[in-house]
């Protein structure tokens, strides 16, 4: 690799050729503020706060748009640079409403933080501020189905515009008018309609773009815990961070308050889609299954687990194990599938079913969302399951034919996913109605027509309630961590399955999820990614303060790269020297 060596604040730094001075400064442990620079977008050089002194250059330079060259001598903190930077901040704040107390970004806003660290203490501006659309939160206007826009707060970094152009592929946002009148807007004020719109909230460094979902719901200091996990919305497997609101056990309302993307170069880079970001409310909804239910002559009654499992055994015995079929959605994790595999041979057969939903996106998008709404089909294949005739499309024809001939006395449906994740269920309901399926057992998380019709209902856990692993379409084996506790008597799905295995006359040797993963690792160890399962560590809730202190100099750009919505990272002597080694453990310790 070609490298260049330059001097930054008296320290010699070697970086790969082609890096910008800003990246070199951050890589060497220094810091300059920045707004328009975003590692996932092209360089713009419009905000000017990243200016540094480079010797032999006549004027101060924007470090984000200057490539490193051999022998450069860069100064980031001379009085000249500091004074110039402070005046850039003064200009940025000339028209800024400074309504941080009512702004959704308050507490995690780079404009707040940097103005605090680098800006002048007071403004000398005497003229009234320029306002769009009125004052205060009244200026928040509709910006499409998911977003609100407050132009008064905008600092014209054009990140949102570049995101739409470069990543989404449909340049719906423009910078209209010019000079001080410039404003971010869409043609005919139609707003942003895109399945990637949520990312605009992340890229916006101020509170100009906020999501309707998270607006006024919580403040950074209200959700002091964050957990690194993954999205299970589709087969892409985006890396995410789940934010938990602090509240006493007895308080009403959701604990999971938002999901934000987490950097993973191979999978989702800095982004995630709106489905993964906003479609999580079902997890803590009223529609969750809280207790096992068994149908008797009196109707469907809530029962304790042991009685429900006895009922399962009785049902299996009555039907005969070989007349029992299993229907699994693509939301079952590796652990669950491995346990299922141990008694699959004793059943009449296992069939996979999932939803195929092509996503409307511009043809040239850089972030295509897969059509397969199942996070673990690749994992099922790797474990040796046969998905259907072609492995590429849902194929329940064999099962349906068997049901039609009356060969299926018991159908066991396993679906720990949201609505619709097991694909079409109408035919199951019809078959149950007509008596072709005598007994229907459903293991799931949400009440649905299927659970209404079921004879036995076993409540499982959603993806944020259990430590499980999934293999995405590109073969990355990834952990989804337990973020919140499951509601009611809901139990981890692999445990339910190992109890059900007993009804089929099998015994599952593994008694912990870790042991299941060990077993998978030794069985599939030759497939890339699986050997790591043996000693996989799951993320645990990390306090925001720890995040802050974990900001070792190498990671100070973190609010952009991994946790865009980090609480403030203060650069100053107040915290003493920043601990270098104290980073968040992403791997086992």
């Amino acid at each position: 690799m070609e490298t260049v060596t330059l001097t930054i604040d008296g320290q010699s730094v070697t970086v790969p050729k082609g890096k910008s001075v800003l990246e070199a400064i951050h890589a060497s442990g220094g810091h300059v503020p920045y707004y328009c620079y975003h590692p996932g977008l092209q360089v713009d050089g419009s905000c000017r706060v990243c200016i540094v002194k480079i010797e032999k250059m006549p004027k101060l330079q924007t470090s984000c748009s200057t490539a490193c060259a051999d022998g450069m001598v860069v100064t980031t903190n001379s009085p000249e640079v500091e004074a110039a930077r402070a005046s850039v901040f003064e200009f940025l704040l000339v028209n800024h409403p400074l309504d941080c107390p009512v702004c959704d970004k308050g507490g995690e806003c780079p404009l707040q933080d940097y103005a605090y660290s680098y800006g002048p203490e007071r403004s000398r501006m005497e003229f009234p501020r320029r306002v769009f659309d009125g004052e205060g939160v009244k200026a928040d206007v509709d910006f499409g189905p998911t977003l609100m826009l407050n132009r008064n707060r905008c600092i014209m970094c054009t990140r949102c515009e570049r995101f739409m152009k470069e990543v989404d592929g449909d340049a719906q946002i423009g910078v209209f008018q010019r000079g001080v009148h410039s404003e971010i807007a869409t043609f005919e004020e139609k707003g942003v309609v895109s399945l990637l719109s949520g990312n605009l909230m992340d890229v916006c460094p101020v509170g100009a773009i906020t999501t309707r979902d998270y607006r006024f719901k919580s403040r950074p200091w209200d959700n002091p815990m964050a957990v690194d996990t993954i999205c299970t919305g589709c087969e892409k497997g985006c890396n995410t961070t789940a934010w938990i609101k602090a509240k006493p056990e007895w308080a009403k309302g959701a604990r999971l308050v938002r999901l934000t993307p987490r950097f993973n170069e191979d999978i989702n880079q800095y982004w995630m889609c709106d489905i993964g970001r906003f479609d999580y409310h079902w997890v803590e909804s009223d529609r969750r299954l809280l207790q096992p239910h068994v149908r008797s002559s009196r109707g469907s009654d809530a029962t304790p687990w042991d009685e429900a499992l006895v009922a399962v055994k009785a049902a299996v015995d009555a039907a005969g194990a070989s007349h029992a079929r299993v229907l699994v959605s693509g939301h079952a994790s590796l652990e669950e599938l491995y346990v299922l595999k141990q008694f699959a041979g004793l059943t009449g057969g296992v069939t996979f079913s999932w939803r195929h939903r092509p996503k409307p996106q511009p043809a040239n998008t850089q972030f295509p969302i897969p059509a397969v709404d199942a996070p673990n089909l690749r994992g099922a294949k790797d474990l040796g399951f046969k998905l259907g005739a072609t492995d590429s499309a849902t194929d329940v024809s064999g099962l349906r034919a068997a049901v039609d001939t009356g060969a299926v006395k018991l159908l066991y449906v396993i679906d720990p996913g949201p609505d619709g994740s097991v694909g079409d269920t109408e035919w199951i309901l019809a078959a149950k109605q007509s008596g072709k399926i005598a007994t229907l057992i459903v293991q799931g998380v949400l009440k649905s027509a299927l659970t209404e019709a079921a004879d036995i209902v076993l409540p499982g856990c959603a993806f944020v309630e259990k430590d499980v692993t999934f293999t995405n379409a590109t073969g990355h084996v990834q952990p989804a961590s337990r973020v919140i506790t499951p509601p009611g008597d809901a139990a981890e799905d692999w445990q339910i399955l190992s109890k059900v295995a007993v009804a089929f006359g099998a015994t599952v040797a593994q008694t912990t999820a870790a042991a299941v993963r060990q077993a998978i690792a030794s069985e599939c160890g030759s497939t890339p990614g699986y050997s790591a399962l043996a000693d996989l560590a799951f993320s645990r809730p990390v306090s925001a303060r720890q995040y802050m202190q974990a900001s070792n100099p190498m990671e100070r750009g973190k609010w952009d790269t991994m946790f865009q919505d980090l609480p403030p990272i203060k650069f100053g002597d107040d915290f003493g020297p920043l601990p270098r080694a104290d980073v968040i453990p992403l791997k086992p310790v």
Partner: protein
Amino acid sequence: MSFHPLMDYGKGMHQSQRALADEGPAFVFTAENLATLEDICSRYPAERRKSAVIAALYLAQRQQGYISRNAMKAVAAAIRISTAEVEDVVSFYTMFYQRPVGKNIIQVCRTLSCALNGAERLTDELQKVLGISTGETTADGAFSLFEVECLGACDRAPVVGVNDDWHECQRPEDAQKLVDGLRTKGAASLTGCHLHKEHS
């Protein structure tokens, strides 16, 4: 869009107040203009087709007198960029008009050199003479008055742009003469730009 959960937030209370360009009548490029546009586009590499956006906007403006939202849509379709990108350009440049304008468009420069030489007073005089404020059009549709930024002839400030021509060294007291001249002799009454003359 197939997915997006209902996220209503105080619907109706939060509408943008941004002034939109006139929607205008349905707009279709004439066959002749379309041919010209294709010719201009062919001068750029295929993947840089959008470089022709200014030329396309001029064609649209010449055809209709101003650039309506419908015209922007037609330009976007012809250049194969998004409508937002077109409005981005239209709203940036003062030579594109987003609503109908008069026959003569008077643009007074208000940037530094002209401002120091009394451009503001000239604008005041023109407003008085024409009986309109900046940004407006006279009732007979003969004149529109705008303030613009530097016209690039600063050494003969204050400078006024009339349609596609310059008129230099304008003092406030010349306002009446300028308007009368335009009414009687049209563009012939203008001095033109000395820069153009000296270099041609």
